[in-house]
Each structure stands twice: as structure tokens, then as C-alpha cells.
């Protein structure tokens, strides 16, 4: 049986493929990736390239055996897959953000409504969560909402919009995720994958 691995398109795609290459897997080349193809069969691995937020969906439903997903997407989807390897790059923080002197947390715009709701519930804050698809910080600027919960890497976007970081909601790293069923039914193969990625994971930062 081939193994199907889901790779998140975008920001993490390059370092993630580097890790798999270092782990000895035959990954698609840069030029291949420049085509519009999203599925690449290589010996016993089928690589699929999907939107970062969809990786946990594919793995959770068994449509992919493993994948790389940020903790933000894992939590947002309530994904039950194993997370055997934490990658040493792409680290960022999910933050509560608002304009300075915002009086009270009344509403939160976010791409992560589930995480936001849990965060608010855990603090007994009665606020509305408004899901947005993008440019989330703008919501606080244009007063759609009093606050924003979003990923922050450098903090540049927050500064540009004259907002400020208020509290860390979660620390986010990308992880290798492996589905429970495939782990149980193809144990050896999955353990080998885990071991190889574990060993190779530092290649990108040490290079």
C-alpha cells in the first residue's frame, strides 16, 4: 500500500519538503511544484498539496495517512490525530489583539472561531465571536469588533494597524500528524515515518 502524506501549501511547504527529503523520502521537485498539479505519486508515497487548514481534515478522515499541520489548525478542527513530531520552525503565537485603550472585550474577529470561543469560555467572558476569512486585524481598526484573535509571527501587521498584543492564547508550532486508524493498522510503517521525520526535522534550520 502507498502512504498518502498531506503537505500544506504556502509558507511551510518548502521547509517541510526539505525535512521529508532529508528523511530520505522522494519529494516532488521545485519545478514540478510550479505546475498546477497537487498530487504526486512517488514510489510508495503519494504527496498531496492542500490548503494548510485542510491538512487535519484529510488526516482525521483517513483520506491522508499523515501530514504536516500547525497546532492552530489541529485545535480549530478538534483533530484527534497523533502529533508525534513537533517541527523546529514556523513557530508563532496566537494572540488576543486590540487597539490601545479598548475598554471592554465585547466581540472578537478571528479565523479561529472554535479556539476563540474556548478561550473566551475558559475566562467566562461573554463576547461574540465573528468569523472572518482574512485581514482579521482590520476588524479591530474598523471597529467591526473590539478585539481580534490571530496568529502573530513578527508582529508587523499588528504594529501597522496601531493595535497592541494583549494576551497569548496559544503557542503554535507545525507538527507531523498521523491518523489513529492508520497508526493502528499500519503500525510499522507509521513508526518508521515518525522515526525518520524525528531524525531529519532539524535539517532546515541547521542548513
Amino acid at each position, binding site marked *: 500500500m502507498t502512504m498518502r502524506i498531506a503537505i500544506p501549501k504556502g509558507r511551510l511547504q518548502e521547509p517541510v519538503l526539505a525535512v521529508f527529503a532529508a528523511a530520505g523520502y522522494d519529494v516532488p521537485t521545485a519545478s514540478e511544484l510550479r505546475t498546477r498539479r497537487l498530487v504526486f505519486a512517488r514510489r510508495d508515497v503519494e504527496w498531496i498539496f492542500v490548503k494548510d487548514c485542510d491538512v487535519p481534515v484529510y488526516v482525521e478522515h483517513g483520506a491522508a495517512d499523515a501530514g504536516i499541520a500547525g497546532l492552530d489548525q489541529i485545535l480549530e478542527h478538534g483533530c484527534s490525530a*497523533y502529533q508525534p513530531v513537533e517541527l523546529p520552525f514556523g513557530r508563532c503565537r496566537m494572540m488576543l489583539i486590540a487597539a490601545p485603550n479598548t475598554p471592554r472585550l465585547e466581540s472578537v474577529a478571528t479565523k479561529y472561531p472554535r479556539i476563540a470561543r474556548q478561550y473566551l469560555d475558559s475566562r467566562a467572558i461573554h463576547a461574540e465571536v465573528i468569523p472572518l476569512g482574512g485581514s482579521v486585524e482590520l476588524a479591530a481598526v474598523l471597529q467591526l469588533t473590539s478585539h481580534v484573535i490571530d496568529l502573530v509571527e513578527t508582529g508587523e501587521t499588528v504594529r501597522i494597524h496601531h493595535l497592541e498584543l494583549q494576551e497569548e492564547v496559544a503557542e503554535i508550532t507545525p507538527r507531523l500528524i498521523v491518523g489513529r486508524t492508520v497508526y493502528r493498522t499500519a503500525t510499522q510503517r507509521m*513508526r518508521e515515518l515518525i522515526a525518520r521525520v524525528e531524525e531529519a526535522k532539524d535539517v532546515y534550520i541547521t542548513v
Partner: protein
Amino acid sequence: MPTKVRYPIGVRPLLLEEAARRRRLETRFVSMLERAGFDEVVLPIIDYADPYGGLLDARRGYRFVDREGELVTIRSDFTPMVARALAPSLSALPLKVFYRGDVIRCEASRLGANRELFQIGAEIVGDASSDADAEAMLLAASVARELGVRPLVVYNDVSIAASLDRDTLDSLKTKRRAGSPAGPFSKLIDGTATLDDIASFAPLAATRLREVQRIVGDRDFTLQPDDVDEPGYYTGIRFRIYDAATRALLAQGGRYDSLYGRFGTPAAAIGFTFTIDAFEEGA
């Protein structure tokens, strides 16, 4: 206003072909279980929630307050209901019983989550031996085989978890090897632990697993000692049966020796439950 055509989450009618298919499977299951010496118990579709305490997952099942002001659940898991029904009148043990019927779950959608689930299960009450463990596992596997499916039975003893420190347990739950020092725990995490390794910290479970392994053999049966997450009401052997071809989960089972005690009459028990609709796809 148009007639609403949809059904509530978790249920739908089965029309002619589907109903016939389900009944064919049901008939074969029942006759296999009867031949194996199991007697039927019929369980109510609703029951009070309180007697089950935390045994039922409140988020999964329909719950409502009845006219007496009591919290009632619609059946979402057979095993605790069997124990509550049998416990008050347990006498000649061991007792071999089977049951069949729908379970209904209203949980938010994950794959297959909001399909109606017709289940048939069986259990041996009052036999704590590893022979009973193996009997249940072998019976479940042979049921699958008779229905034309090559089973893959993955098993373990969840009591291993009780011997583990918190860090090891966390590692097992995520399968992440935090730099734990070499040793049996570390081998458990990276999947290289033998039963001898396990015996060093969980001797009873190791013995039990060794005996079970001796009886069930290796063909179609895979021991997976690191599979200890979320034991629920299971206390010993825990197994899952997959279709080896499609990896579809066909049945789950295990030993729950403290369940009957919850309802007033302590008794060992091991059982399994098939979800028939999983077969309808596979077979």
C-alpha cells in the same frame, strides 16, 4: 409550506434494499452468536442518565428531561446498559449474552458520526480469565470472517496505563517522544517494547497479554502495547477489529471488570460490539 423532508441528526429510514441488506446481516450475526451459545437481552432505547454517572459521553447522545423531571438519554452505547440491566439478577455465571439495535448519536459531524448505527454485540459476564479474553476476540474475528471480511484485530491491555508516569502517558497519547531516557518506557513509546519489557513495570498486563497472544496467535491479530489512550470503562484487554482490506473499523471490544460493580453486582466481563452499517459498505 413544504413538508420538511429531513430527519433528525443521527437517524434516517432504511427503505427496501437497505432494510433487506441490514436484515440479512442481522440474521447471520444472530445465528452465529446463538450457535456460539449466547442468549439475547433486549435493551430499552431510552434510559435515565443519572445511574450511568460519567459512563456515557454527554456530548454524544440525545438527552432530555422527562415528565418526571428526570434526565433521560437515548441509547448511544450498549455496554453500560447491558450491565445495568443484568446486574440486579446475575446468578449462574458465566453468562453469555448478545444484543442488537440502534444507537443514536447527535454529536457534531465527523466522518460517519451522524449516520444511524445499527449494532450487534456480545459479552461474557463472570469470567475474568484470559481464556475468556481470547474467546471473545476469536469469536469476533470469526464472525467477521464468516461475513467475508478479512479481519485485522489490534489489541492491548489498557491497564498498562496505570503503571506509567504522567510524562510517558502523555507521550503515548501524542506518540511524541519527548527525550525520555532509554528503558522500557522509552521502548514502549518508540514501539520496540517486548512483553518482557512491559513485564518490568506492568507484570499482570504482560502475563495477560502473553496468554492471550498464545491463544489467538499472530495471524490477523496484532498486539500494540502503546495503544493506551482513553480507556473509558475498559480495565484490561481492549481490541479493535478492522477490515484488513479497507481499514474500516468494524468492531470494538474489551474487558470492563468494574462496570457491573457500578450497578451493584461486581462481575468481570468482556465483550465486543459490531457496527453493522460498517459492514454494509465492506461486505
